[in-house]
């Protein structure tokens, strides 16, 4: 770069220093308040007799939420600051009349903005390390923790800053710049939630929470920052983020060379993005309407109302932002077209041309079935069998495969839409097929009409054995002690420590568990009469309640004349 050119850039930086360097100062003060101030406070409150050192595991524990807010919002502010010149009409005309090439101008603004992001962080890190070293206290964190925090925070803030720069070149107004950056940051997760939820409304059996359980929060950078406290960043992830930041900077510069100056003050800087913006907002608000009304009301007419009302609102607002006036009544044609296309898409999904909702595998294809309430355990089978009662199970007997398949067929046929006033139960049916493919469906099912199906599966020996920890072969360690408590007072009524007595009691309890009807298993008609606490040889304890159905236990207690104490 020649001296002349360097001089022009220096002039721009001098102006930046005058106009926007306050953002760097604010950034630094906020981090000082979030990290260094609590360290100083902890030092001043330290009492050697009590030894009250704060229990921070890492720097993120010092002021978690607050840290996320800073890392999220300040980089956006910095980007808005350095791009302000192109969002104000007169300033845009002035700056672009100067003999500075656009590439150089934006690059120098990006570097300045990035320094406002990085330098305050570095200063904070240095001061924090100085405090930890200088203030003599048995600190739970050390300089390495601070450096890790510094590296991760610089990375995350850089990505958010880069993202915001790219958005800033796309738009023509500072307010829209800030708002849109925030929306787009949560967009990846938001749109997945909306799409999956709406699919589950249109396709009976679609297990939306199964797909949503894959770390959606990883897609939202500020949320990823919040999680750093317990899941640190690996080199690969950090490298990926920095690469993304570089790509975004490059994209921003590429766009800027093509950006019309005269769009300063307008919502979108590129005319091509206007329809994308309007219909993008309309689609999202359409999905949001489905998400909301599908959640509170299962009737189709209300769902339709939700789609139309929300999308109309979204479309109108987007049009207003673009046109910069609220009088947009002439633009109804676009909305009509939009509704037509969305209705067609909806209809196609609902028709289910790929047979998603119809597919029930043949018995001969099935290796094992999965039946339960949670979609997560279908993926994480290692989680099954940890609690006293386990609803989620993989079943392998022919009878149960048939039973589950029959239940599924019935649900495919009925497409149940339970009302809010019925007792409903999530039913998750999964298949592992012999060719290795997996299939998962989830329904909300009213309990009463399908009781026979529930019974056939849940009262089977295979299911019951896995269902209850006491019936599981080698499901528990030898029982060392049984404590019976009154359910209402919580007072101990009886303690069994004699192995023979314990064995005889457990035998009675097991008998009752084998006999427990499906209704009770689904939580209906159960009335707890007492609490049983079992202490195992490995020190683990679990407790259950016994109910009116537990006739053998009652008999056992009556024989020993303690029944009346429990009844009290």
């Amino acid at each position: 770069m020649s001296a002349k050119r360097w001089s022009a850039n220096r002039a721009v930086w001098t102006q930046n220093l005058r106009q926007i360097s306050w953002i760097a100062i604010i950034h630094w003060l906020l981090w000082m308040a979030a990290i260094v101030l609590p360290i100083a406070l902890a030092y001043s409150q330290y009492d050697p007799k009590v030894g009250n050192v704060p229990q921070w595991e890492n720097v993120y524990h010092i002021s978690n939420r607050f840290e996320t807010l800073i890392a999220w919002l300040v980089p956006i502010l910095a980007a808005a600051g350095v791009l302000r010149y192109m969002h104000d009409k007169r300033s845009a005309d002035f700056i672009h009349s100067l003999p500075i090439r656009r590439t150089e101008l934006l690059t120098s603004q990006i570097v300045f903005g990035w320094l406002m992001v990085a330098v305050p962080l570095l200063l904070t890190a240095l001061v924090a390390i100085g405090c930890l070293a200088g203030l003599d206290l048995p600190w739970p964190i050390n300089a390495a923790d601070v450096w890790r925090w510094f590296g991760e925070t610089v990375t995350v803030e850089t990505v958010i800053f880069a993202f915001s720069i790219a958005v800033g070149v796309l738009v023509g107004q500072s307010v829209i710049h800030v708002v849109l950056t925030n929306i787009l940051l949560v967009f990846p997760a938001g749109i997945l939630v909306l799409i999956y939820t709406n699919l589950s409304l249109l396709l009976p059996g679609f297990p939306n929470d199964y797909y949503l359980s894959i770390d959606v929060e990883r897609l939202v950078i500020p949320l990823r920052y919040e999680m750093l406290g317990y899941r640190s960043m690996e080199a690969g992830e950090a490298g990926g983020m920095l690469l993304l930041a570089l790509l975004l900077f490059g994209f921003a510069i590429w766009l800027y060379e093509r950006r019309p100056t005269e769009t300063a003050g307008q919502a979108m800087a590129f005319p091509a993005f206007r329809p994308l913006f309007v219909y993008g907002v309309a689609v999202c608000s359409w999905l949001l309407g489905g998400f909301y009304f599908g959640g509170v009301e299962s009737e189709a007419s209300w769902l339709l109302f939700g789609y139309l009302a929300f999308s109309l609102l979204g479309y109108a607002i987007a049009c207003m932002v673009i046109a910069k006036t609220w009088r947009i009544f002439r633009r109804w044609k676009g909305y009509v077209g939009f509704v037509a296309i969305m209705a067609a898409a909806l209809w196609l999904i609902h028709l289910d041309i790929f047979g998603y909702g119809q597919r029930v595998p043949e018995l001969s294809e099935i290796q094992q079935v999965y039946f339960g309430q949670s979609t997560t355990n279908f993926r994480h089978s290692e989680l099954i069998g940890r609690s006293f009662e386990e609803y989620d199970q993989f079943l392998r007997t022919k009878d149960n495969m048939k039973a589950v398949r029959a239940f599924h067929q019935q649900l495919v046929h009925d497409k149940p839409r339970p009302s809010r006033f019925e007792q409903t139960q999530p039913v998750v049916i999964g298949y592992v097929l012999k060719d290795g493919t997996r299939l998962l469906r989830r329904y909300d099912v009213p309990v009463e009409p399908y009781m026979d199906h529930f019974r056939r599966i849940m009262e089977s020996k295979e299911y019951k054995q896995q269902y209850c920890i006491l019936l599981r072969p080698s499901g528990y360690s030898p029982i060392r002690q049984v404590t019976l408590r009154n359910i209402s007072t919580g007072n101990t009524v009886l303690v069994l420590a004699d192995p023979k007595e314990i064995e005889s009691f457990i035998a009675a309890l097991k008998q009752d568990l084998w006999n427990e009807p499906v209704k009770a298993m689904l939580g209906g008609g159960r009335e707890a009469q007492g609490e049983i606490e079992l202490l195992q040889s490995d020190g683990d304890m679990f407790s259950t309640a016994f109910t009116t159905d537990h006739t053998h236990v009652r008999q056992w207690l009556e024989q020993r004349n303690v029944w009346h104490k429990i009844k009290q």
Partner: protein
Amino acid sequence: MIQLADVTKTFDRFPAVNGATMTVPKGAIYGLLGPNGAGKTTLLKLMAGILRQDRGTITVDGDEVWENIEVKRRILFLPDFVYFFPQATIQQMADFYEQVYPSFSRQRFTELRAAFSLDVNKKIHQFSKGMQRQAAFWLAFSVRPDVLIMDEPLDGLDVFVRRHVKQLLIDEVVEREMTVVISSHNLRELEDLCSMVGLMAGGVVQLERDLDELRAGVHKLQLAFRDGFPDELAERLEIVHREVRGSIVILVVRGEKRRVEETVRAFHPLIFDVLSLSLEEIFMYEMGGAAHVCETVVG
């Protein structure tokens, strides 16, 4: 020097400039005239490299202006609403211009201090509109650009300052052969300044004339003949306008002055005076095709 060929710029399907062609020779003071909405501001911004044309070429000494640092260093654009950085003083703006434009002359800046008598350390935004404009001129003259492009620059200046600024402008042109493009919707404002005018309407430069040539090409004659106005003379002159006041006929004719004189003398007039035309009148008579535009410009 500045050459625009078939330049088009469209805003949201509205063509603000629609195939404009224009030539500004070096050392000229070019007045760009046209009614409101003719596309003058857009054309000037295109010329200054602020906007990018959809079509056509804009060159200064043969080099494209858009994103060309070498060319843009020689151009200074003065908008209709002058811009300064928020909270900036004249001194700070001068420092800025000095770093951005290699041609900036600190000596010139100091010389002009007396002429403008503004406080260099006061925030420009506390100045009145007219004073801000003066500040903009002060800075512009200190940059000593080869090309100075100004959009309606004399609005909001009082008569005294206006005369002063015009004089400074003419001095710069004479001394350094600075090229000036200046827009206005009012011909009178430019009359004593321009050496060339371009008339713009509907996004097109409808015509371009050297004012001296223009003056030399149209003449106002005051004539009287013994036996009335000879019809043959009317046929031999290119008459644009004719007016009869008693026995005297006033004609506006096109043509070389010497030829016109010879032609008329051949008919032995009793009275024969050649009167001077104001720029306004030349416009009215000369630009017949663009008459409706002229009216608004002259008005």
